């Protein structure tokens, strides 16, 4: 009876809807973080008397012949017998790579993080020369020779300067510390280490630096878990300062503001450091430096003068403190559990340069399949093949566009991924064909944990081939708990897993090997739980002392782990057909380089306004981290949002690169066709809006796939000199389109203010109202009733759209275009359009269309405006597509030919000064309609003049000119 009573008491405790913070470590619960913060506290205390114990042995400097690379020995005065090696290189694009490792140590530090992140081994500069001086090694480079790298010997300090100003400084604060490998001393004392006299009595001449106790060097407890730490202490501490930059951005994934708030120093916004340790955080907080599902250790430092960035290629858990000693400078402190020091310094000096430099290292985002930019409808779970058919039918009845239906874990029998639950999905291939008949696709979830059971061929094969992650003893397969109950995890660090994994996705039989013949080539994949999430593991993940291929501990590779599954699945989907087709794989966990493999989403968010707002910032931060193809679950994963919130969330969703609605199994169904009016019609229009703008999105994705410039651009990226915009993270630009969006993320809004960063005219996309900015920046009020997302077109932009609603994006392939020309206050405008077949790699062979649209005065003093379409592909073939630099462009390629009949059906010009006297193409007058209004070149506000040219009868693929005579 007593047992019952206590159980009853438990049941009476109300469920709190919030993260379980006790499941996750704080810095003070993590031994190495505690040691790292202890180090910085001692340095703070010692102030100017603090000197880093690390120094370069100048006599050992060895400069590579003809390459900008040198190595040198490094010593620590604390441990004179321990040897460290330094390796500094300058790449041909000016990026500096600094590496340091222990040499001839008892063990090896993990040095593979960069190799997983980098797209290729970077080319070193053969032009830049190091010069060795008495106190340092230096190299000067750059077009104006204004970039300089200085490696000071004693103490070791690496500085990047530009125009004589310090941009990035490593170990400037003397916090560099690489804990060397050591043998575990058999402690003579049995009693727990407390204030044992003996310890204090020993003279510890390292205590000023390391502190006076061996803080959990060899074993660490957290909750009921014990980390055996067989390698002992091996953490790495490094301070990275940006003495002339007042804003830092990046290091996703955190639910924080874009311009990262401080974690140390006076009035620090957070008390905990930012943490990078991929974790499945249930009901995460909307404003916190806690770890989330992915880690990109990339940080931008920005000021009106320049932008620089660093990429700290470490795969182990990392904590980052951020402080602003003054509003114009930033200090950061990076504390990692293991691995070598491997830092890339990107010199910028503009945000665009940073993106080019970073994506040259880790790769540009893959150009997605065109359909993947459409609307994705997901739910945990559509419960049967008939349920899927019914959902499709209801979308079609309501004439709401959707491209993809998703299946969460319940499709799989006993959560054995790939294996259909035939009771509810008796006919999976037929079901998929029914979806594909409307041009749609399906995405099905495949997680990395395998149910440990004999009747599961995937587990059996992995087991037989020895492809599973081992437990701490290195022998036994690790067994943990996940969706499928008792599970094992595939070790993708084992190269033998790669081909095996790819074979699983083949849709045709593969001899005696199992393959997914119950799928089609239009079945795409969702990788979830790849942090990895382990329900009964420490911090809902794997024990750190688990062993991966090559003997590396899980702690060494934890943050990279999720990317490998994404990488391999992406390759598997790409290569299941010959020729290959563009894969689509969504991942929850990610690392630097994940942008090459597909899309990500912000995990299990809550259906609250707070999380809606956090999602916008998190997606922006991901774009900064080079991973543009990002979105948050529309509607919120948990909870039942009301209709107003759902409408606003769809408006957020259509301006996310990845646009998916998803819902938890405990929620009410909320597919948009279920809503009452007026909400249903509003969302229908919102969905159609996304589809009409697919040309804009696809063009933006082409750009990021070539240049690395993100799809969503916050103000500091778009206007890097406008100080007032640096902290703005609730409005953003879509690619280079000139579209400026400020999603509404609060209840009951009817208006909002939008910041305009320049002296330019901006047009309300829907009402055509003119708003004028100012060179010092200006906030304007925009109407934002429920049906209206605040969306402006920047004067000087030409926006191509397709305005015929269809059920799915492939059905729009031959639909005509509308061109919206938003004249600038100088009466000019410019825009781009990129098209290809949207699913193969034929664009790399030149089968695509890349156009430029220009509006300009026919002559300098003339009032006539000429609108023309030009072949951008022919002008810049080398920059047209990702992955290959074409030398020429053939305008009669197969794709262009197939599009030759596709028209521009409408040209709309905003802000023309007067009613035209004529609108002509060649000699023939076109049909047009003019509505009186404000001119772009005016100073007035109000509704812009609108000139609509009806059906000029021109192809989207050809060159043409229209002259509007005033």
């Amino acid at each position: 009876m007593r047992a019952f009573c206590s159980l009853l008491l438990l049941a009476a405790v109300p469920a709190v809807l919030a993260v379980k913070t006790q499941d996750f470590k704080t810095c003070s619960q993590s031994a190495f973080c505690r040691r790292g913060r202890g180090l910085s506290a001692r340095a703070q205390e010692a102030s100017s008397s603090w000197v880093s114990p690390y120094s370069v042995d100048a006599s050992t400097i060895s400069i590579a012949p003809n390459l900008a690379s040198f190595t040198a020995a490094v010593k620590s005065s604390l441990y004179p017998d321990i040897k460290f090696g330094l390796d500094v290189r300058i790449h041909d694009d000016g990026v500096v790579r600094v590496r340091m490792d222990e040499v001839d140590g008892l063990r090896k530090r993990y040095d593979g993080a960069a190799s997983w992140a980098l797209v290729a081994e970077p080319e070193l500069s053969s032009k830049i020369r190091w010069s060795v001086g008495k106190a340092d090694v230096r190299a000067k480079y750059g077009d104006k020779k204004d970039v300089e790298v200085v490696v000071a010997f004693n103490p070791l300090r690496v500085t990047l300067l530009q125009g004589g100003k310090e941009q990035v400084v490593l170990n400037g604060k003397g916090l560099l510390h690489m804990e060397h490998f050591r043998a575990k001393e058999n402690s003579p004392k049995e009693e727990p280490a407390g204030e044992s006299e003996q310890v204090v009595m020993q003279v510890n001449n390292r205590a000023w630096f390391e502190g006076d106790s061996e803080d959990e060097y060899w074993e660490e407890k957290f909750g009921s878990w014990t980390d055996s730490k067989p390698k002992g202490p091996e953490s790495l501490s490094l301070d990275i300062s940006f003495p002339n930059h007042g804003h830092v951005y990046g290091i996703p994934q955190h639910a924080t503001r874009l311009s990262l708030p401080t974690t140390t120093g006076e009035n620090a916004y957070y008390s905990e450091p930012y943490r990078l340790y991929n974790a499945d955080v249930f009901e995460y907080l909307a404003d916190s430096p806690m770890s989330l599902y992915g880690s990109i250790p990339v940080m931008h430092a920005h000021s009106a003068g320049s932008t620089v960035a660093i990429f700290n290629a470490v795969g182990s858990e990392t904590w980052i403190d951020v402080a602003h000693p003054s509003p114009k400078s930033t200090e950061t402190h990076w504390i990692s559990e293991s691995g070598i020091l491997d830092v890339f310094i990107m010199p910028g000096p503009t945000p665009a340069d940073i993106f080019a430099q970073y994506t040259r290292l880790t790769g540009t985002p893959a150009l997605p399949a065109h359909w993947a930019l459409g609307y994705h409808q997901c739910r945990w779970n559509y419960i049967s093949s008939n349920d899927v058919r019914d959902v499709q039918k209801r979308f079609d009845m309501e004439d709401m566009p959707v491209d993809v239906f998703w299946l969460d874990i319940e499709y799989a029998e006993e959560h054995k991924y790939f294996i259909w639950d035939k009771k509810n999905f008796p006919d999976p291939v037929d079901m998929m064909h029914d979806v594909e008949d409307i041009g749609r696709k399906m995405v099905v979830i495949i997680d990395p944990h395998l149910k440990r059971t004999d009747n599961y061929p995937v587990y059996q094969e992995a087991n037989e081939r020895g492809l599973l992650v081992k437990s701490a003893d290195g022998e036994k397969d690790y067994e943990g708990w996940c969706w499928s109950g008792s599970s094992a995890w595939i070790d993708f660090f084992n190269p033998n897993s790669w081909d095996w994994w790819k074979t699983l996705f083949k849709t045709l039989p593969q001899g005696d090997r199992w393959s997914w013949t119950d799928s089609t080539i239009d079945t795409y994949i969702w990788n979830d739980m790849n942090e990895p999430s382990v329900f009964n593991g420490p911090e809902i993940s794997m024990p750190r002392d688990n062993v991966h291929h090559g003997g590396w501990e899980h702690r060494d590779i934890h943050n990279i782990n999720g990317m490998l599954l994404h990488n391999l699945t992406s390759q598997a989907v790409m290569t299941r057909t010959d020729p290959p087709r563009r894969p689509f794989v969504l991942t929850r966990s990610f690392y630097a380089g994940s942008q090459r493999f597909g899309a990500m989403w912000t995990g299990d968010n809550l259906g609250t306004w707070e999380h809606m707002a956090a999602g916008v910032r998190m997606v922006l931060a991901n774009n900064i981290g080079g991973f543009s193809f990002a979105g948050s679950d529309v509607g919120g994963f948990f909870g039942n949002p009301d209709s107003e919130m759902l409408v606003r969330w769809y408006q957020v969703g259509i301006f996310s690169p990845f646009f998916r609605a998803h819902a938890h199994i405990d929620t009410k169904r909320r597919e948009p066709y279920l809503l009452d009016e007026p909400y249903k019609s509003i969302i229908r229009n919102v969905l159609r809006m996304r589809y009409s703008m697919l040309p804009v999105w696809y063009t933006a994705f082409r750009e990021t796939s070539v240049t690395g410039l993100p799809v969503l651009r916050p103000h500091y990226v778009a206007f890097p000199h406008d100080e007032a915009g640096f902290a703005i993270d609730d409005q953003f630009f879509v690619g280079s389109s000139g579209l400026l969006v400020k999603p509404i993320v609060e209840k009951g809004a009817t208006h909002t203010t939008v910041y305009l960063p320049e002296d330019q005219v901006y047009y309300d996309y829907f009402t055509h109202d003119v708003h004028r900015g100012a060179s010092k920046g200006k906030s304007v009020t925009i109407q934002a009733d429920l049906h209206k997302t605040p969306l402006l077109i920047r004067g000087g932009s030409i926006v191509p759209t397709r305005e015929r609603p269809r059920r799915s994006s492939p059905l729009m392939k031959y639909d005509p275009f509308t061109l919206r020309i938003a004249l600038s206050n100088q009466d000019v405008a410019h825009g781009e359009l990129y098209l290809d077949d949207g699913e193969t790699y034929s664009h790399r062979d030149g089968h695509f269309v890349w156009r430029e649209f220009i509006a300009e005065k026919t002559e300098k003093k003339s009032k006539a405006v000429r609108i023309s379409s030009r072949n951008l592909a022919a002008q810049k073939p080398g920059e047209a597509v990702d992955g290959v630099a074409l030398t020429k462009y053939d305008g009669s390629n197969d794709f262009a030919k197939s599009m030759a009949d596709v028209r521009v059906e409408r040209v709309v010009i905003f802000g023309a000064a007067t009613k035209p006297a004529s609108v002509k193409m060649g000699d023939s007058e076109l049909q047009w309609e003019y509505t009186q209004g404000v001119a772009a070149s005016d100073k007035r506000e109000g509704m812009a003049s609108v000139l609509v040219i009806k059906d000029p009868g021109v192809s989207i693929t050809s060159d043409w000119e229209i002259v509007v005579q005033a």
Partner: protein
Amino acid sequence: MVPWLLLALPIPVLAGVDKTHGVSLSLLSRYQSPGSPSAPWTCLDGSKTISWSAVNDDYCDCPDGSDEPGTGACPNGIFYCRNEGHIGAHIPSTRVGDGLCEPECCDGSDERLGICPNVCKEVGAVYQEEQAAKRKVQSTGSKIRTLYIASAQKEKRRLEGQITTAKQEIAVREDEVARLKDILDRAESISATALEYKKQSPLYASLMEHSRALKALESEYKLHLEREKALGDILDALRLGYNPNYQDMAVLEAVRGWEALAGLPHINDVAKDDESHKQEVPSQQEQELEGEWTAEQLDKKLDSLINSDYETLLIEHDKHIGAPVSDSPLYDLTAYIPDAFLPPFEAFLQTVSSWLQSFGLTSGTTATSTDNSKARQAFNDADKNLSAVKQEQKKAEEELSHLFDPTWFGSEGEWKRLQGTCLSKDTGEYTYEVCLFDEARQKPNKGGSTQSLGKFSSWDTGAAVGSPEYYGKQHYTQGTKCWNGPMRSVTVVFSCGIENELLTVAEPEKCEYQFTATSPAVCLPLRAEEEPRDEL
């Protein structure tokens, strides 16, 4: 500037679209050629006037989309395909020219010429066949439905008969009860005083105290049993339905704790290989005191013990003790009479007593009590019988009122026949069952407790009461509560079929089930024009 010569020639507008293409038959008159292409034409909503040449030119001019009946240019238009040889159909203009051949447009007119074949002949034939088959089912089903209605009429007569009989019986029995009550009252009024005195006995008072305590204990005990069972059910449901989506190891611990306590095997356990962790069910048997009731006795005999007739017991007790414990002041006189006078007094008493008895003024204590309890017994029995008949009547009246109540068995009583009929469906893991107008259930096929998915609560509240749509759905609500979810409920969607059959079971939202079923009860008679030909 690009030389004009290099510019591509303007491409031709979608050629050959007839002005009446896609126009609904009823609107054809509005699309008559006004004579010249430049002649004005007004949008159907009157909002704008355009030239006739702009009709069906694949450019949207009218806000209502009426200028483009035959193209996909307007987002809000309606396209009509004539489907000659079959039945014409309207589709949204968003499906015109999208490259897909719409199944609604068997004539292929929704796409450009040559893309979609005209399959109206085949489609029409299949359609006719399907319709015929459907009509046949409906016709047969409606005949069964007629039988159901007839059965309801019969039931009505039966219930009416039952009510009449009951009323008569009630009258008779009420007289009987009144008579017996009278006898009882008289008997009781005589013995009341005696009984009251006896009741003052400390033994009786203590007995009553015991009885009250026992009653309280019993209800407390039952309450605990119920709570224990409810808790066990909750924990069983948690154990079986436990969904680690909250990734909450505390839940796992609770499940394990329950398994250990209830002696259940570990379910899906991570450490299932580790036999040493298996715990013996802790023995809950405690030493029984001699003569102490067993749980079974408690279960079966406690009620009758508590419901003992204590007054009868009291009287029996007197008899048992045998002592002529005087309960009348008359008998107590001996105490006050000097010993010397006793013998003559007792003789006198004997005489008086028998004299009194013969006049019926007093009676031998034991005999009086027996009569009294017999009278009570007779009255109680008669009263019980009367209540039973009244209950029967009430039940019959209620049934009668439900019979043609549209919110119950339908205005024709067509559902009455199916009351309590159970339809079931085996889905592998569970067998689902709905007993109409009663309860829906989920029974695990591999053992475990059956869950109630809800009791019948209403027909489709979204439809007008009594309409055919109204009988298309039944709701069963207030089933067992889900862990972390609502109380289970079921919506049964009926369609016309010859059999009463459960077709599909789905759980589109957690713990909210959707059943589809067929029943002849929803097969309305065919309207005259729908009658299958073979019946004509």
